[in-house]
Structures are given as C-alpha cells and as structure tokens.
C-alpha cells in the first residue's frame, strides 16, 4: 500500500502534499475564502456543513492524483472517521428547535457524519463503497487496516479522511489517497502519523 497524495484543510490554511496552497489565516470565513480561491463553481458548497465544506475543498485538490486507469465510479472506497460525529451541526439543530422554535430541516439533514461522504459522491459521481468510523483520535493503523480490507475486496483505491469539526471551534480535514503497492503497511502508518503532526504544527 502507498500514499498517492494528501491534503489538509483547517481554518489557517489549505495544504496539498505538504505545501500551503490557500492561506486563510485571520480570515473571517476561512472556508469560504479557500473555496473562492479554489475557483470551483459549485453553489451547493454554501449549503454544506463544516465537515463537508472542508472535505469538498481537500478532495478537489486531490483529483489530479487519482490513478488514471482506475474505475473510480465503482472501485473507489471512501473511508472517513472522526471523534465528534456531527456534533457541530447537532448543536445547531438543537438550537433551531430550542431557541428558534422551528426545527430546521436543512440543519437536520447534516446531523449524520456520513453526509460528508454522500456530498463527495454526488459531486464526483462516485457509486462505490463508503464507511464512517467514530474513533477517539486519528489512528493511522486503523486507516491502513480498513484500506487494506477495502483493497482486498477488489476496490482499486481508497480516499481516506480524518475530518473533525468540534463545537469548541477545532476544525481539520486530513485527506489521503491510498492504493495497492509493494510497500509495507507500517511505513504507510508511520508516514501518516508524521504527516498529520506536520500539518497540525504548521
């Protein structure tokens, strides 16, 4: 297994393969700014929750790195995880019925973490397999196990993400694309844990 490419989206900036591509530090609305710098025409972006917005931007940047000969429509598996599920939107939805006295349908539909993978599948017409795990913290060993199991089943590559939006404002989306190769799993795991540390400290 090997890492084909990776991206990282957080309020201070958007990174691709370790390099800063959109500097959004100090912006009032960093994700909107990153989206505008990206230049994608996808008005639905504005309706998305924070998880989907971050994953949308990070995934657009990874598109050139997907294997050219792969049947992405069917054989790309999405494996996403975080610790807080859809907590951020959950709290907004509670506010809509407790304070505003009108439960908001457009918030409710984002009160599931896997909506983020649904949004990506809609955007890119991916009909493959999806799975969303809840974990205490980013665990590179688990991601490598899940990806290996997905590849064993005949999937060609895996788009993986640790995508978190907490009520306290912590937001990050670390995306990486994995495919089969001779490389040992432990070296991928080591690389992933190094990468996320670098991204978090930059």
């Amino acid at each position, binding site marked *: 297994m090997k890492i084909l490419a990776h991206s990282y989206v957080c309020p201070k900036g958007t990174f691709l393969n370790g390099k800063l591509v959109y500097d959004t530090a100090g912006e009032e609305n960093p994700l909107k700014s990153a989206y505008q710098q990206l230049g994608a025409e996808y008005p639905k972006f504005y309706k998305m929750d924070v998880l989907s917005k971050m994953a949308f931007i990070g995934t657009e940047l990874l598109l050139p790195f997907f294997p050219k000969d792969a049947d992405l429509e069917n054989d790309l598996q999405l494996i996403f995880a975080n610790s807080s599920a859809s907590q951020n939107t959950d709290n907004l939805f509670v506010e809509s019925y407790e304070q505003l006295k009108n439960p908001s349908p457009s918030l409710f539909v984002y009160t599931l973490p896997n909506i983020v993978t649904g949004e990506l*599948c809609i955007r890119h017409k991916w009909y*493959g397999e999806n799975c969303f795990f809840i974990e205490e913290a980013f665990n590179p060993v688990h991601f490598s196990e899940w990806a290996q199991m997905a590849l064993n089943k005949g999937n060609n590559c895996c788009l993986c993400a640790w995508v978190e939006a907490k009520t306290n404002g912590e937001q990050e989306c670390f995306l990486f694309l994995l495919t089969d190769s001779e490389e040992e799993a432990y070296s991928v795991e080591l690389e992933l844990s190094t990468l996320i540390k670098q991204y978090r400290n930059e």
Partner: protein
Amino acid sequence: MDKPIYISALSLVTPLGNTIEQHFDAFKNGISGIKIHEKAGFQQTAIPLAKREEITGNRYDTLLREALEKAKNAHPEISGKTAVIVSSTKGNIDLLPGDTFAETASIVHEFFPATDVLIISNACISGVIAINTAADYLFAGKYDQVLVIGIDAVSEFVSYGFQSLFALSNETCKPFDKSRNGTVLGEGCGIVLVSTQKPADFAVLYKGGSSSNDANHISGPSRTGEGLVRSIEKTFRRSGKKASDIDFISAHGTATVFNDEMESIAFGRMNLDQVPLNSMKGYFGHTLGAAGVLEIIMSIVSMEKNTLFPNLGFKETGTSVPLNIIQHMEQKALNTVLKTASGFGGGNASLILQKQS
C-alpha cells in the same frame, strides 16, 4: 472468501421484549411495538413511536447495557482475538453538546473487557455495513470473532428532525402499502456474533456483502434505485449468488413514499420482484443504526424456523413495481437470504446469508 464465517443472534432488546423468543412470538402473532405517544412530537404533538416503555433513565445506555448483559449470558466465553463493532447513528444524544459516542466503548468494556471497540456511524445502513466490516476483519485474519451491536434510542432530537422533513407517519408504519405516509421511529439494541468458529447455537453463513452510494441526493432516495442495484450486483458477485438463488429478502422499507418506491424499482431491475419480501419496520418502527442488526437477527430466526413473517401494515400494492410482499405467515425452506438497507447520505448496503448445509 474462502473460510466460512458464521453469524448467530445473541440478544435483542426492543419494545417487543428482551429475548429472541419473545420477538419470535410477537412476529408470529403480528404484534407491533408502535403506539401513539401523546406530546412526544414538536410542540407537544402526538406522534407514533416504537418506544421501550420500561426504560426510565438514559435510553441509549440502558438499551446498551441490557443487550450486553443478555449477550454475555448467551456467550460467556470470549476466546481468541475479539472485536466489538457498534453501529449507531446518534449514540447517546444526552451527551450533547459533547461527543455523543464518548462513553460507548467503556460501557462495552463493563461486559466484555479487553476487546477492541470500533464504532460505525453511517446513517441507516450502519448495521449492514458493520456486519460487512466484521466479516472483512475475519477474512483478513485480524480477529477470530466480532460482536456487532446495532443500537439507537428514541429522542426528541430525531423525532423533531423527521417531523421537520414531513417524513413521519401520523398513525402506524405501513411499508410498501398504497396508503403509507411516512415512517415511525423506533428504538432497540441487537447483538450478533460474527465468527470463524462454528458456534454451538443456530448460526448461518455470511456469504458476502457490499455498499454503494446513490451519488444523487443527501436525503432523498434515488428515483432509479441505482445505488441499491449496484450494491446488490456487487454482493451477488462477491457471494457467487444470483437472483434465482434468493428465497427471501429482508428489505429496508421505511414506509416513506419515495424510499419504498425506490426499493421496488431496484428489486424490479434486479429480477427480485417475485421473491418473498418483508420490511420489519411495521414491528420495530425505524430503529436507524440498529435496524440492520435487528432485521438480520429476525432473518436468522426466519431461517432457523423456516418461517416467512408477514410485512405488518401492508394491504395493497403501493409501488410502481409490484413486489411479492409477504402477507401471511408461511412455512418455507429458507436457504439463502438477501438483506438490504438504504439511508441518508445516499447509502445503500446489502449482504447474503445462507443456511449451513
């Protein structure tokens, strides 16, 4: 998919009871867990719910502990490398504004210490995906057995949300029926053992499974059933089965107008429209992240007893592709069973169970 993988039912806690025998009796007698609950809806409206009325404290924790205790009694010997996969859409909603899944693993550890606990939250297909993932782990040799727990509790949060989508029925749950007008929310916890070792109790073989996204809309089912068709096709390929092998389908059937219509189109496209089929939402209501596991447990009971249970709430065909909806309890040899699920986020999942020869 060379080594055999066995699935057996360990425990089931719902408004219909807390033993599998009680559920068999309820299904035999056409008893539903659904009742109208005054003031349970937004602004004190009355809504139907399938709610376990014995619960007084935290609903999620209570359901989880009760089912875990029963499972531990049914399967006290944990031998070999064991994982627990919990399938749930919302976890413990009372933990908001914090992490709703923060305490799940520690509750599991009260009953099954020293197991690896994983949580899958993938809307209404979580249960089927959790069992598929358990099988993947066994095929990979990482574990010898996996306990899969499907759980979700009734909450104001989810009730108000479904009300805001106008997706709730005002009376009962009538999957695939002409007069269906929405789903009914339910709660429950079911636990199955997925193992490479043949259990002493009745067990069926897991033959393969898959998921597929509709790539259509985050909350509306595809009009063409594309995702469900692709998942069933993939599951057939992986299990080496075809439509004519299937003796019974445990469908999703939420009783919303669009979902059931989508399923009928997908089953028609797959030449599965003549296969006896039910949705169990008329008994359990829609238990979201628990649904797949609960319905697989009752499918295993169907296979053990060679009994087709009626699709409670169905009277008249109400989908553009007529399906072979089970209307009366019937004895039939059930060797191969297809389970499907569909849900928010465009997810569809399926798996195939087979009786041991």
